[in-house]
């Protein structure tokens, strides 16, 4: 029996994961190194990669700070009642249930140029939708639960005793946070960061809706892949996809490493 199951497992992995990854590599090299470089050094490709980079950095920073704080409040705070805490806790998962396209649509509906808030911002010269701020908002929405959900179980597990001891001794929570809480949640946070980077790197649906996919302006790496495919420029799509896939595989390795460290602590 063992042989059958193991070979079937290998077969599924081969068909579903390994062959496709190899195909991306060979596809991007179809015209050799030159074709790959040429596709990547198109101005729109460079711009798209830069946009993706900006979004990843900003979103990861914001999501980490707010995610850790919210996790702390949801686990520790005694100023939120039990029932309310439960409600907030279940609200955290909402973005998981929302299709990315709908996530984008929500931002367009609330902050789009035809709405009151959107018009107000536009008057003072600050564009949200079809510009970078909207794309960052959309990605923040999509990645929101990742950090909170990584940090909360760790906090619940370690309990509040040590922190309480530190606070009784008269230390302000900043000190308590850095010297008592942080060392124990560190690997959970790092794992959350890796997940956030991966998700914001690859976000497509929400960003496509909010950005309008304007070349050299609001185009990200994933939406460029989409546009290249639509224009039947498969080689170019492959090259950008290869860069993204290489990052994802790297992140996957980081994930494994962080997971192992997390389990040790």
């Amino acid at each position, binding site marked *: *029996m*063992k042989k059958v*199951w193991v070979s*079937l*497992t290998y077969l599924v*992995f081969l068909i579903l*994961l390994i062959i*496709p*990854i190899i*195909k991306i590599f060979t*596809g991007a090299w179809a015209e050799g190194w030159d074709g790959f470089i040429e596709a990547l050094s198109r101005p729109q490709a460079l711009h798209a990669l830069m946009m993706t980079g900006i979004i990843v950095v900003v979103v990861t920073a914001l999501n980490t700070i*707010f995610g850790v*704080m*919210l996790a702390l*409040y949801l686990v520790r705070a005694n*100023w939120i009642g039990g029932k309310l805490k439960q409600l907030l806790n*279940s609200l*955290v*998962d*909402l973005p*998981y*249930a*929302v*299709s*990315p*396209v*709908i*996530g984008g*649509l*929500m*931002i*367009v*509906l*609330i902050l789009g140029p035809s709405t009151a808030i959107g018009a107000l911002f536009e008057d003072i010269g600050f564009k949200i939708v079809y510009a970078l701020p909207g794309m960052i*908002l959309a990605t*923040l*929405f999509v990645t*929101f639960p990742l950090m909170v959900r990584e940090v909360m179980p760790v906090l619940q597990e370690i309990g509040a005793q040590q922190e309480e001891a530190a606070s009784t001794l008269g230390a*302000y*929570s900043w000190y308590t946070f850095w010297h008592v809480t942080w060392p124990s949640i560190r690997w959970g946070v790092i794992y959350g960061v890796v997940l956030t980077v*991966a998700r914001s790197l*690859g*976000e*497509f*649906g929400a960003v496509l*809706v909010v950005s309008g996919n304007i070349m050299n302006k609001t185009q990200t790496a*994933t*939406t460029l*892949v*989409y546009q290249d*495919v639509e224009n039947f420029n*498969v080689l170019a*799509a*492959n090259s950008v*996809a290869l860069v*993204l*896939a290489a990052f*994802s595989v790297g992140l*996957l390795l980081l*994930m494994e490493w962080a997971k192992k460290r997390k389990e040790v602590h």
Partner: protein
Amino acid sequence: MNNLFRNRWWSFGFRTTIMLYFILLIVLPIIGIYGQSFRSGWGPFWESVSDPLAWKAVLLTLKLAIIATIINIFLGTMIGWSLIRYRFPGRRLLNSLVDLPFALPTAVGGLMILLLLGPNSLVGSLAQGLGFDIVFHEPAIVVAMVFVTFPFVIRAVQPLLEELDKSEEEAAYTLGASKTRAFFQVIFPTMLPGISSGAMLAFSRALAEFGAVVLVAGNIPGKTLIASVYIFGEIESDNPQGAAAVSVMLLTLSFVILWAVNLVQSRRLGK
């Protein structure tokens, strides 16, 4: 005293900021979308929803997501089992690879499927020779859904199998149960909560999937146009009302599933 006062203001400021961020980013948009679709009352909402193309898209999404989930239940149970129970060369590598669909941008996933199964590929031309199409038709959508939801069932089943008490299984053997019987009476019931919660998560993800599907589906209205692509099309053609109405249908469905997952999980923890 002065110090305490300042601390209090600080922490009050922090609390308000975090809670405002939470509510503005997550809660408000969702209320907004329900508000938008019912803004002009039931009539226009009903009109948008009862557009045959709209409900055909929703039904198609449901059908294909169910097929993808069933495939994933079988694949996930088998792979979760093999990865935990057997020791074989490459096991750890495969175990890390499971998460690849989570790490890979969905648009890249769609492109991979397009390259492998497209009309110019080996598989695609073979299938065409046999008289059926994959890419730009329903099979490709199912493949895309299976790909993006691949890790859910596996990751839900694995911890349960790891926790499984070996002695229970051994007791079954001692009592003379065959391997099949021991599997279905002892092991399978343990895996079941994992399979069901993993399957529900996979199902809700498959319903919502956009990136991988938009590239491989032909997006022909009424035939291969799934709900999320329909919503995208409505936004592009500047019809937020229609987009919001279909979104509300899809969202409500996903919320019910998410709620069911929570119920299953809390019942398991409570036991």
